[in-house]
Structure formats: C-alpha cells, structure tokens
C-alpha cells in the first residue's frame, strides 16, 4: 500500500483482477439494462386467473393487505339480489348484517332506481379476502374482482402473495398501465 511498492507479478495480477472485476460489473449491468426495456414493472392480479382463495388477505407483507376488491361498474348488473353482496340465502334483500356476505362490511349498497342498486367497495374496510368475488363470479357477472392497489403496495422484489398464489394469477405489469381491470375497454 506504499506508493513505492514495486510492480511485481503479484501486484500486476492484482491490478489485472481489479480491472477485470470493475469491467465485469460494468458490462454485466450495462448489458442487462440495455436488454430490458426501461419500463418499471409492478405486481398485479390477472382477474381471469384469480380463484379468490383468500391468500391475498393473509400473505401480504402488510398488516392490512394491499389487495382490495374493486367493482367494474360497466360489468355490474346493479342487481337487487346481488350475489356478491348478499349471502346465498338472504332473509331479505337489505343491508341487515345477517344478510351481508362481506365479513368486514366493506361493500356499500345504495339504491339507484327500480330495480337497480349500486355496490361500492370501501377500501379502508376491505381485506382482500375475495369472498364477494366468489359470490359474484359464481352466480353473477364477475364485476367484483381483486386488484393490487398501488397506493398501498410496496412493490416488493418478490411479492409474498404471488409466491403463495395457487393459480399464479400474479404477474408483473408495466407501471404506466398498472391495473388489469375487467370490463375496461382497451380501445
């Protein structure tokens, strides 16, 4: 480490290796960056692959999952008898707790006009369990589905829910089109 150190074979090798490491690191990253496009990627659920197993509610690294249910209004039937909102055997078609499907009470039912009702998700209450998704998909139009909400998602390097997803519905999508919304026209 003294400056007068002679340029012997050992030092020469060392210098060579040093240069090689620097060049190697540079080129490896340069190449990988050059190959990938510069689009940032974020996690999202493909709603057509989702089986609403409930893992989204518990496997997220966040205490309150970043996955929430969303409503595709354009697909919704605005049913009075909403199978995503009401249990299969409702006592009455109303907002009574005994009739609601959602265990966290995150779906709001509002009267629009006869015979239509609007259903909206209160995301602060929703835990992403997907129970309503099942109800809506099995009986109804499937307008309720799960999505990663990017105001909450930490965009982990490996999404913990993705690793636990039985149908591999999680994928990385470009950050400029971060949602895979059902019923949204791509035109």
């Amino acid at each position, binding site marked *: 480490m003294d400056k007068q150190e002679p340029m012997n074979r050992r030092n020469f090798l060392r210098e060579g290796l040093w240069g090689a490491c620097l060049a190697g690191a540079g080129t490896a990253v340069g190449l990988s960056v050059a190959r990938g496009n510069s689009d940032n990627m974020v996690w999202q659920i493909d709603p057509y692959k989702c089986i609403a197993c409930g*893992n989204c509610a518990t496997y997220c690294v966040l205490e309150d999952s970043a996955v929430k249910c969303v409503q595709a209004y354009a697909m919704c039937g605005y049913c009075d008898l909403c199978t995503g909102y009401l249990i299969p055997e409702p006592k009455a078609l109303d907002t009574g707790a005994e009739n609601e499907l959602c265990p966290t009470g995150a779906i709001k039912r509002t009267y629009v006009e*006869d015979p239509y009702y609007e259903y909206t998700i209160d995301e602060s209450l929703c835990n992403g369990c997907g129970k309503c998704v099942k109800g809506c998909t*099995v009986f109804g139009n499937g307008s309720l589905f799960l999505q990663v909400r990017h105001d909450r998602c930490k965009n982990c390097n490996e999404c913990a829910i993705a690793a636990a997803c039985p149908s591999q519905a999680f994928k990385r999508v470009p950050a400029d089109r971060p949602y895979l919304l059902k019923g949204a026209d791509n035109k």
Partner: protein
Amino acid sequence: MSGRAGGGWIVAVLVAAAIGAAVAAVLRLDTTGRTGSGLSEAYEYDVSRLAKIDPNLVLYVESGPLIHTGMNQSRSIALDGAGRIYVAGDRAIRVFDAAGKAERMISLPGEPQCLDVADDGRLFIGMKDHVEVLDAQGKTIASWDSLGEEALLTSIASHGDAVLVADAGHRIVLRFDAAGTLVDHIGEKDADRDIPGFSVPSPHFDLAVSRDGLLRVADPGRNRIDTFTLDGNLEFWWGERSVGIKGFCGCCNPVSFALLPDGGFVTAEKGLVRVKIYNSDGAFVGVVAGSDQFAGGKQIKVCETPEECQGIALDVAAGPDGRIYVLDPPDNTIKVFRKKGAST
C-alpha cells in the same frame, strides 16, 4: 481475541435460544401458501351444502349416448320435429341425429348465439345483433337488419308467422313477422299495462312459445317466468326466489328453459347448477339433474385469455318424446335424460 468471562454463559444461552427460535421461525414460515389462507370459516364461500339434492326428488336418469359437440365453444341447442339435434357455436351449426350421430355441419359467417328450428325446417339463428334465416338445407334465405351495437340476442322462437327474439342487450323481446319486419316490442316497462320491464343483469334471457301461442319469457333478475300473449299483454307469472330446490336462486336464474310436450317447463340454472321440472302452472315437479353431473358446476374458471373465461350457462331443449337434452358448454357435450321408468 480473548473471550470475556463474566456472564459468558448467559450470553451463550441467549444466543443458543435465539438460534433455536430463528431456525424454528424459518421452518414454520409458509411462503408457498401450503397451509391455506388461515382465514376463519366466516370467509369461506361454499355452496356445496346448498347444491345437495334429495335423491327422491330426482325423477330423471341419464340415457342414451353422451354427445360430444366437437366444438370449442358450444352456445345453444334446439330440436326439430324429427328429433334431430341442432347445436350452435364455433361459427357453425352442427346437426346430430336422434341417436347422437353427427349428420352435418352448416358454416356461418359469424358466431351464433341462439337458434330455433321452425316446423317447416327453416333455421332461425340469432347472431349477436341480427337474425339469419336458413332453409332446411342450410342455405341462407335472409339476413335481417342489425338491431344495433348494444343488441345481444340470446333466444329466438318461431310460432306460425311470428318470430320472437329476446334481446338481452336492450332487455326487451322483439316480435318479427316471417319476413323480418319488426312488428312489436314486448315487455317494455309500462305502468298502464302493469308491465315492470325485464330485469336482465347478465347475458341470459330466454323465451319460448307454447303450442297455444302464449309467450313465456324468463325474467332472470326477478327469478321468475312471465307469460305474455303475443300482443304483449302480461298475463301471469310464476317463480319463487329461493335457494331451496323449488325456487330459483342467485342472480339471473333461470338462465334457460324449454317447454315440455305436456305443457310443463324444464329449467336450467347457473351458480347452483341444476335442471328442474315444473308443471304448466309453475308448480315444482322434480329434478332432472344437479351440479355434480355438469362440468359447469366448477366454481371459478382460470383462463389464459378473457374470452376463454366467458361463462356460458347450460341450455336445455325437450324432445317430442319427453326426453330432455342439456347442452353443457364448458364440457362441449350434450347430455340426454329420460324419465325414470320410461322405456329407453
């Protein structure tokens, strides 16, 4: 590198315990979803309990061959007077004889949604937004005008000179004459005539015309079957909204129905997949088959492309001999049922 003596064993014990805890934590950590979601029963959605059917109520047995439609996407089924089976789907109509042997195939320029075979053998085919009329040989006779972008024809029936078309997109039944002229709108919301308007939350909207000229239309949002005269007067309706076996449950049921030779009804439901028989007054008679007999009983489909996920519900047709033909689109098969005890 001299170790420190005082309290060394406490440190050793703590470190050992911590290592143990760390190893245990790593082994207990489930990163692959193996142990399930861990949510309580309240989060479960299980209709299998409701799907169970009392075997005493089942009046029909599967008979005859299981007919493979050979399609990727079967959509609709109809029978002609001779018992031949017509299936629409895959930009074609396929015809099978009564024994289920494929007879011929009629190619179509687009995707058919529904079809009806008239008494004279003509085929009325509902495309997405218009009707095609084919002669018995499969030659196109006419292609009627489009009913607009939003139109989605889901059912078609002919009676004498009248052709009735269910347009789920506009939630209305249209009456045409045989030449394709629009004669009447039936079922429009009309307080004066006590017609509430159809509630059609999803693309399932079936109709049929009985021999006596009464029009039956399923109102899936209200879980009932309405009876209209061909002039558009709402006569009466029947149908109980219930998960119970006698009623129609959930959204958009019955998705499909057909009239039996004795004037009764055979109905098909989605969600809780079941095919049932009602008499001409709408009283429950019995069950043809439950969800365990159909591929459509699968709860949620996983698909590569959205169009693969388009759920198409069962379609039913009744033969002149009282047999019931059920088209199972996810499976692309036709199942034939006959009454228990009736001769094969």
